[in-house]
């Protein structure tokens, strides 16, 4: 999926505390541990993609074919499982929040965190291409937060989370909310080690979105329909949207909320509290 959008290599991601400008550049631990190979490619991008078909004269010398049978996303998946093991050992519940830009992920967190912080310690990892705006908003709530700026990247990956968690040092028995880069495509492919994927969709977007972005809704465990206070003013059927979501993700948990008015938030919070007890 990602190869459609021209996003850059993961090594460009920068971790920031709220309010930190562009200067604070951590030494880049490109690979978790002992990874010897370096990303020396990728900074090109001036469009030399024109030789799609190579006509190779093998000059009569046969090359040696070596079987690999290796998953392309193996590195990410292995690291995601390491993250998952760390989270489990610390009795943490980790949620990966996903949506298009502007569906209300950060606003949802701004309502969710104050309601839960007396029950459980909360920490947040914010993913955006640029700025610490979201981390500043979450930081204002007084909970630990790290901003991951992905640069040209369009999604968070397991390595970014691994680095961010080392910096964040989340408490045992805590809730960690990861707010992914606003994008309904690529983040669906990259496991971060989370327990649950929470997709947020708003009523200003179109009730066929689950069918347009089926991979995301298929991967999701929870779907939260936001901005329901605007339902009278838009051409959007909550029922149709729910049906569409259920068609591509048969066992999705569905919530309808207005983060602005607080309508429906209790159901979501109650469900989350129950889920926290089970972790």
């Amino acid at each position, binding site marked *: *999926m990602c190869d459609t959008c021209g996003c850059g*290599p993961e090594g460009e991601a920068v971790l920031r505390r709220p309010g930190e400008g562009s200067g604070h550049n951590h030494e880049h631990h490109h690979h978790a541990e002992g990874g010897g190979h370096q*990303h020396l*490619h990728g900074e*090109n991008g001036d469009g030399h993609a024109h030789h799609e078909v190579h006509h190779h004269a093998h000059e009569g010398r046969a090359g*040696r074919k070596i079987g690999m049978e290796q*998953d*392309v996303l193996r590195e990410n998946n292995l690291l995601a499982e390491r993250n998952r093991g760390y989270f489990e050992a610390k009795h943490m519940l980790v949620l990966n929040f996903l949506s298009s830009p502007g569906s209300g992920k950060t606003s949802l967190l701004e309502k969710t965190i104050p309601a839960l912080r007396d029950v459980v310690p909360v920490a947040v990892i914010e993913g955006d291409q640029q700025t610490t705006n979201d981390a500043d908003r979450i930081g204002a709530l007084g909970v630990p937060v790290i901003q991951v700026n992905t640069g040209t990247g369009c999604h968070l990956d397991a390595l970014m989370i691994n680095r961010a968690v080392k910096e964040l040092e989340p408490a045992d028995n805590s809730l960690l909310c990861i707010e992914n880069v606003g994008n309904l495509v*690529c983040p669906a492919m990259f496991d971060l080690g989370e327990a649950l994927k929470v997709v947020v969709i708003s009523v200003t977007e179109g009730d066929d979105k689950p069918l347009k972005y089926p991979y995301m809704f298929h991967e999701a465990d929870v779907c939260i329909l936001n901005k329901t206070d605007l339902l009278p003013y838009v051409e959007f059927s909550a029922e149709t949207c729910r049906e569409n979501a259920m*068609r591509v993700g048969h066992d999705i948990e569905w919530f309808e909320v207005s983060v602005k008015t607080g309508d429906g938030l209790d159901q979501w919070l109650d469900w989350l509290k129950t889920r926290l007890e089970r972790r």
Partner: protein
Amino acid sequence: MSVALSIVDAVEEKARLEGAGRISEIELVVGRMAGIQPESLKFCFPAAARGTLAEDAVLLIEEREALGSCADCGSTFPVSFYLVECPRCRSLGVRVVSGDEFLIQSITIEEE
């Protein structure tokens, strides 16, 4: 693009272990439900591979069909989308059971 870079990383590591001078061919397997567009991958690959052992490699992509299995009648059939109806009993309780693979099957290396 980051997917193309992952492929280049993986094949280069393997090729170096095998003492290759360059990689001439890479065989990939992409399931129909893997969420990967082979055309986009082919487009991105040369940029991702520039300056690496895989720079001149030919990318061969085998697309594999996805299979769904009906929870109600148990029949298995090809699918191309998560939203499918069982062709035998019309049930919507269909689980996708294969077709999300995305593998580097093999590489061909030249010793030179």
